[in-house]
């Protein structure tokens, strides 16, 4: 399980980009396509290999005026899921 001090980054060969034809963000990985939901998109925009999970949570808590602990639970679960799928390292 990823913890809040971890610094997540996309693995080599994984690309997070906006797809004009689908009007949606996509996460492209080797022979894998992920269609992140709205919350995951906001998290992935902050995954840069520099920010720790805790600072990502801080920013989202401010941006969405939501309780920090709720955001933290969601962010950790989402990042852990993507790590299990091979898209992310932390």
């Amino acid at each position, binding site marked *: 399980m990823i913890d809040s001090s971890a610094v997540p980054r996309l693995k080599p060969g994984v690309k997070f980009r906006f797809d004009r034809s689908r009007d949606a963000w*996509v996460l492209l990985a*080797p022979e894998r396509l992920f269609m992140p939901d709205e919350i995951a998109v906001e998290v992935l925009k902050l995954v840069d290999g520099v920010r720790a999970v805790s600072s990502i949570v801080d920013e989202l808590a401010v941006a969405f005026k939501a309780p920090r602990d709720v955001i933290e639970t969601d962010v950790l679960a989402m990042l852990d899921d993507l790590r299990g799928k091979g898209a992310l390292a932390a």
Partner: protein
Amino acid sequence: MNAPANLAAPIALIAELTHRCPLSCGYCSNPLELERASAELDTATWSRVFAEAADMGVLHLHLTGGEPMSRRDLPLLIRAASGAGLYTNLITSGVTLDDNALAKLVEAGVDHVQLSFQDSLAGSADRIGGYRGGHARKLAAAARIVASGLPLTANFVVHRGNLDRIADILALGEDLGASRIEIAHVQYHGWAMLNRAALMPTLAQLEAATAAVTAARARLAGRVVIDYVVPDYFAARPKACMGGWGQRIINVSPTGLAMPCHAAASLPDLVFPSVRERSLTEIWTGSNVFAMFRAPAFAPESCRGCERLEIDWGGCRCQAHALTGDAARADPACALSPDHGLVVAALAEARADEVVPRRMAVS
């Protein structure tokens, strides 16, 4: 036939750049009759097709063959694809992937390389691929790819002749530094169908392999993705043909014929549209062959009313044709299919035997 109004764009383009290949694997799924080099699409046409694909919403490009590195213009093709915004995956045997070749591919913007292996044991691997020294070259290629920082998939095609080494095969994939391991059971299309009895694993081999993969997935979780599916003949339920015929993938043959999958060339009486004459979008939305088996308008007769119809759409059209002679029937891999006895009979015919190597007969 018109395309349904809500038809989504394909997510992937499979570009079969050439049928030429230095290996002669007996499980080759390419057609019995191969296309000549002189009939292949040229650089400009492929580049146009890649641009059309990106424009219509294709995300992944899979460059395959044959051996795509047999194309001298491969770096130019990758540059065109990458420039168009496609995620570019090179599927190669790696036997000619030296430092110079890799540097050109990296410079051109390749995103990922899938390297095929025939076994974990060099002697057996070279025998299966019909290429002396091939395994050693592949190991060197894998090391180069990983050292360059590119993500690597190690693809192992498994069958009766190598499945007993599944644990060693998985360990090799891990040792190579692959971020993804694909354990691909042979599919009996094209040349492979000739060798079906000799390639078919035993049930005991299959069960051991599935258990080994399950254990490796747990051990390597978060580090290495392992792709593995139970093969059709043992699965009881069929697989959605390429995510559904004409739903997610468009395949272009070396000469430019657009098909819903590369095995579709085996279906008789179908006239496939050519990318030399029509754009990919026109083909995807307007071609009769893409529409003819496309769900939901099409469903095999015996599948109608089945609760799994929208999961597998009646399975693989090419397998239905290969086994029953009728591409519109339910895939006999399904235990509910009226033709499932054909699969049961094929399992009974499996035996230890010589595998006939691929020969390069051309049309």
